[in-house]
């Protein structure tokens, strides 16, 4: 497992039905591109987050493929319309097979 990986998410706690809300996500990850060499000239193997998914109550909101050129600590900000009270489910997929997950509840009145 890549070290120091920590997902963090900012979702408003409350919203009105049909509101467009802004969601911010950030995961600390070194995003090693696989293009760099170490001091001895050996290639440092690629190690990145390659996919990010956000679901709301089981319905997909966003599904992103990440490429090696994306820099360290990838940050995503996007808007979503919330029709009802529910839970956002965020998932990041690491090259080494690890999956990092976070959930956030939102109350819609």
């Amino acid at each position, binding site marked *: 497992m890549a070290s120091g990986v*920590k997902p963090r998410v900012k979702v408003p706690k409350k919203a009105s039905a049909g509101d467009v809300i802004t969601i911010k996500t950030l995961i600390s990850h070194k995003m090693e591109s696989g293009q760099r060499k170490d001091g001895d000239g050996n290639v440092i193997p690629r190690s990145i987050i390659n996919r990010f998914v956000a679901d709301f109550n089981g319905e997909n909101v966003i599904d992103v493929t990440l490429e090696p050129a994306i820099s360290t600590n990838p940050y995503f900000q996007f808007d979503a319309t919330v029709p009802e009270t529910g839970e956002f489910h965020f998932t990041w997929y690491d090259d080494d097979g690890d999956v990092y997950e976070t959930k956030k509840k939102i109350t819609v009145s």
Partner: protein
Amino acid sequence: MGIKLISFVSALVFAGSAYAQDSNQLNVEGELFVSTTAAPSHMENVDTLYSGWHFRSGETQALQLDDFDNPGMVFVDQGIDLFAKVDGSEGKSCQSCHEDVEDFAGLRTQLPRVEDGQLVSMENLVNDCRTERMGAEAWKWSSTNMTAVTGLIGLQSRGMPMNVKIDGDAAPFWEAGKELYYTRVGQLDMSCSNCHEDNYGVMIRADHLSQGQINGFPAYRLKNAKLNSIHNRFKGCMSNIRATPFKEGGKEFKALELYIASRGEGLAVETPSVRN
């Protein structure tokens, strides 16, 4: 006509940026910070202090206003983990003695300070605890672990005004720092004051010179995507003027740190700030 109009507009833009420090307000997480204030009486050549935040572009400034957007907070989070992590032969973590990190509120504003005849920076305090109480190895001055922990401790003082002691037993160190500040060094034969006192606000290559304030350190820099210590920044400046930098944690940089901290008296601590 169209071309003339465009050149007129661009001339206006240039005129506007002659004084790069803007009048925006530093409002972090809904709290208004003192980012510009009257200079302390010991500064003869400067009337108004400006935080380095005022010299940055709008995008960079915005990053510091929201703790979620502030990339420095990623490292502060690492600092929280390190603070609770047991290390060394005594089986202790920082938390074993300092139960609540919030007890450090106000510490950043007073450092560096004189203890037992020695000038000490926050890095010294951290390493003293590590070697003497925890039985752990000292961290390097600007290592990732060190800046994460100094960032966390500095954050507890965020918003409080800088207020280092410069009289009494601190006076000789302060004088030494002032001497360094005004001494020309390196192949380019420049002193700190040439840029940060005489020319703040004007362009140096593609960037605006700031007053060289250290109220936001350790600072997250976009150029290297990590927290940077004060002494590391001094070192960068000295390399840029083609001088041989002093040693990080050495007596020269500590004296300079004290003097420059005193030049920011009254500015709010911004740790961790975002700069380019």
